[in-house]
C-alpha cells in the first residue's frame, strides 16, 4: 500500500532487546530490507527492561506509536524476561486504550535474531497502521512540541 | 533515450519481467513444447530484450508458436517468466493497427462443426487487438 499522506511523518519508538530483536534489526539491515525511517530503535538488554514509564514518556513527548520487540516466548536470553514484559504490556496497552491511545499505536512483537524479514515486515505494517491512525494527540504534552 | 531502448523497456513494462534475473540455464527451452517450431528459442528471449533487439523479437515466428502453456514460467528456477516476455512482444505487434495474426476473413475456412467457441475467443485475444 502506498502511503497517501506523505506529509505526516510519524515518530515511532521501537524498544528492541539486545539478543533477539536488535540482532533481527541488524539482519534486516545487512539484508537491505527496508522499512520507513520513522522507526528509531532503542537497545535494551531485555524486553523486561522496558518500563511502562518509558512508553508513557514517549507518548508524552509526542511519539505516534511505540513498539516493543523481544525474543520469542520461551526463547528469552534471560529465560523468563519476555513473559514479564508480555504481561506488563497487556495491562499497559489496555490502560492506554482506555485513555484514548488506541491499541494500534502500541504493539508487542517477538522477533528472533534470524528474522530480519519479520523485523522489516513488522515495522512496515506498524508504520502503515500509524499512518492510518494519524497523529497522536492524546497524552502529548504540548509544551514538548517544537 | 534511443528508440530501441524504449522498446526494450516497454516490453519489460508490459510483461513485468526483469530479464536480468535470468541465469541462462535453458530450462525454459528444455521445457517448451513448441521449441522446434520457434526461430528464436525461449531462453534467447531475454537476450534480445537485454540487447535491445526488440525488432527481431517482434518479427519472430516464435510469437505465434507460443501456447501460453506456462510450463516455462512454472519451471523457471529464477522466476523470470519467459512466457510473459513473448506475450509482451506479441502485444506490441497486435496493438498496432492492422497488425494482427488472424483476420476475420480467414476464419470461415478454419472453422469446423466441432470447434468450441473458446478456441475462437482465445485465438482472437492472443492474435488480435
Amino acid at each position: 500500500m502506498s502511503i497517501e499522506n506523505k506529509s505526516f511523518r510519524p515518530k515511532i519508538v521501537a524498544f528492541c532487546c539486545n539478543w533477539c530483536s536488535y540482532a533481527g534489526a541488524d539482519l534486516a539491515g545487512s539484508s537491505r530490507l527496508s522499512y520507513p525511517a520513522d522507526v528509531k530503535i532503542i537497545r535494551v538488554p531485555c524486553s523486561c527492561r522496558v518500563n511502562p514509564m518509558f512508553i508513557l514518556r514517549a507518548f508524552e513527548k509526542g511519539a505516534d506509536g511505540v513498539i516493543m520487540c523481544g525474543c520469542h516466548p520461551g526463547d528469552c536470553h534471560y529465560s523468563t524476561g519476555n513473559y514479564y514484559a508480555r504481561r506488563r504490556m497487556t495491562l499497559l496497552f489496555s490502560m492506554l486504550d482506555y485513555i484514548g491511545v488506541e491499541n494500534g499505536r502500541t504493539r508487542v512483537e517477538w522477533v528472533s535474531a534470524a528474522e530480519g524479514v519479520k523485523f522489516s515486515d513488522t515495522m512496515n505494517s506498524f508504520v502503515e497502521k500509524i499512518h492510518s491512525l494519524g497523529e497522536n494527540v492524546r497524552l502529548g504534552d504540548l509544551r514538548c512540541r517544537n | 533515450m534511443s528508440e530501441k531502448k524504449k522498446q526494450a523497456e516497454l516490453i519489460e513494462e508490459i510483461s513485468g519481467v526483469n530479464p536480468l534475473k535470468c541465469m541462462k540455464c535453458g530450462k525454459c527451452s528444455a521445457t517448451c513444447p513448441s521449441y522446434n517450431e520457434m526461430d528464436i528459442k525461449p531462453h534467447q528471449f531475454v537476450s534480445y530484450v537485454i540487447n535491445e533487439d526488440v525488432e527481431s523479437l517482434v518479427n519472430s515466428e516464435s510469437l505465434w508458436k507460443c501456447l501460453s502453456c506456462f510450463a516455462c514460467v512454472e519451471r523457471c528456477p529464477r522466476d523470470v517468466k519467459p512466457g510473459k516476455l513473448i506475450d509482451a512482444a506479441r502485444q506490441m505487434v497486435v496493438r498496432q493497427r492492422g497488425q494482427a495474426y488472424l483476420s476475420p476473413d480467414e476464419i470461415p475456412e478454419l472453422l469446423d462443426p466441432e470447434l468450441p467457441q473458446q478456441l475462437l475467443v482465445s485465438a482472437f485475444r492472443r492474435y488480435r487487438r
Partner: protein
Amino acid sequence: MKYSYYPGCTLRTKAKDLDDYARASAKALGFELEEIEDWQCCGGVYPLGTDEIANKLSCVRALNAAKEKEQELVTVCSACHHVMKRVNDDMRNVEDIRTRANNYMELDEPYQGETEVLHFLEVLRDKVGFDELAKKVVNPLKGQKIGAYYGCLLLRPGKILAFDNPENPKIMEDFIRAIGAEPVIYPYRNECCGGYISLKEKDMAKGMCDKITESAEGFGADMLITACPLCMYNLNKSSKKEIPVVYFTELLAEALGVKEACAGAAGEDEKEVQA
C-alpha cells in the same frame, strides 16, 4: 449449500453436456449451482500484459456478483477457471490493477478479491470430499482404466491456481478412484494440448496431442477425461489414436446414476437451440 456458478460460453453451446452433467451431479450430491445473472465471456485466455484492465472486467463482474451474494464462485471449464482465478488474484494482490479496475466498475463497494473461486473438482475434493462422493456412487465404473488429462490451465501458474501439485497432480486420479474406476498415471497429463494454436497451426497441435494420447495408451489407459472443451476438441480432432475423451462430469453423472436423465434434457436443449 449454494454456490454461485459461472458456466462460461462454451458450456452454453458446444460443451453443453459438460454443464448439464455438472448441474445434475451437483444436485445429486446435494449442492446447488446458482448461475450468475448476465455473465459475460471470460475471454478464454488470461491477458498477460500488466497494463491490461478492460479485458479483465467481465471476470471482475462475475466475481463481484458472487461476493454480493456471499457465495463462493464455482467454475467447470478449465479456461474459465484459469482466467477467473488469475483475475481474482490480481484484484487481491496487485494494487494497480485493483484500483484501476474498480475505477472502471464504479461499484458501491470496491471489489478486492473477496470471492473464493473454486473449480468443480475442488468442490468435490474440499467441500464434498472424495470419501463422501464414493459413498454416493450408485454405479461404480469398475474395471475402467482412466487417464486424467489436466492440461495447463488448471495447474499453472501453480502459485496462483493453487489447484494441485502442478508437476504431479492427483486430484483427478482421486476423483477417478472415488467413482470406482482405476486411474492411469502417465507423464504427459500436464503437458499442453496446443490450446488456441490449433486454429491456425493444426499440425502443431496434432503433434502435441499425439504425444499425450500415445503416452496415456502406453500406460494402459482406455479413456481420457478432461475438464476443458478445447483440450477435448484438440485431443479428439488432432489425434491419430482412437482413445475416447470424455468430460469428467459425464463420468461423475454416470457414477451417480443421473446420466440418463440429463442426457435427455441435453438433447432437448440442443433441439431448442437449433429451433
